[in-house]
């Protein structure tokens, strides 16, 4: 209801699209999808947050957890962020230093 999570393949990577709000209530949905993918060995991930208008620390924790799993498997995690409100959460926690942020999926796939 507040968050919609879907997955597709594009440019040889797995793109996970989140739409809505990622918070303490909805983050488990995103966590479930990312955990399912990494457990399946799908560790070359782009998480598209361009249609997410709110993200809290629970959402960041899901991404940090995913980053660890992806790195252990020599995979990669890129995140697409467009809303300044969301970008700010990455900046103030310093997470933008650990996870590459991109302005579009095309940009994330081109790296």
């Amino acid at each position, binding site marked *: 209801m507040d968050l919609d999570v879907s997955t597709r393949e594009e440019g040889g990577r797995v793109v996970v699209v989140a739409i809505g709000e990622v918070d303490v*209530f909805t983050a488990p949905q995103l966590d479930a999808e990312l955990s399912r993918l990494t457990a399946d060995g799908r560790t070359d991930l782009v998480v598209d947050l361009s249609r997410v208008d709110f993200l809290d620390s629970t959402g960041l924790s899901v991404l940090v957890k995913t980053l660890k799993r992806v790195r252990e498997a020599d995979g990669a995690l890129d995140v697409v962020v467009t809303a300044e409100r969301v970008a700010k959460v990455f900046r103030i926690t310093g997470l933008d230093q650990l996870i590459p942020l991109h302005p579009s999926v095309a940009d994330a796939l081109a790296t």
Partner: protein
Amino acid sequence: MPAATLSIPPSVEHVRTARLVAVAAARRAGLEESVVDDVRLAVGEAVARAVLRHGTAEIGEEVDVVVRDDGAIFEVEVHDRTAPDVGDEDDGVALALVRVLVPGTRLEVRSPGTCLTLTWLRPVPA
């Protein structure tokens, strides 16, 4: 008189309601939109912390949120009903984020629980 007083059950699905109320009051108070973003995030973290503490302590009673818009300051108090020594592990990231966003954050014991007070300076009316 507070701009809004809200009580919600201690479950994560209701945290969003507290964000909505705080954001509506922040806009009414004339805060800039970038500050309103900080209010949304910080209040969300503070209320999530309170709700998770109630969960850890198995306290079914409500979490209370009081929004004040008095003169030069805009203030949000989040009251939980847990003992101060409950679950200081789980709310680490949330509380740290609140402290970074809102430098004047006060965490006090206020019976029957703890109270987190977030304070923003309001721009002087033109």
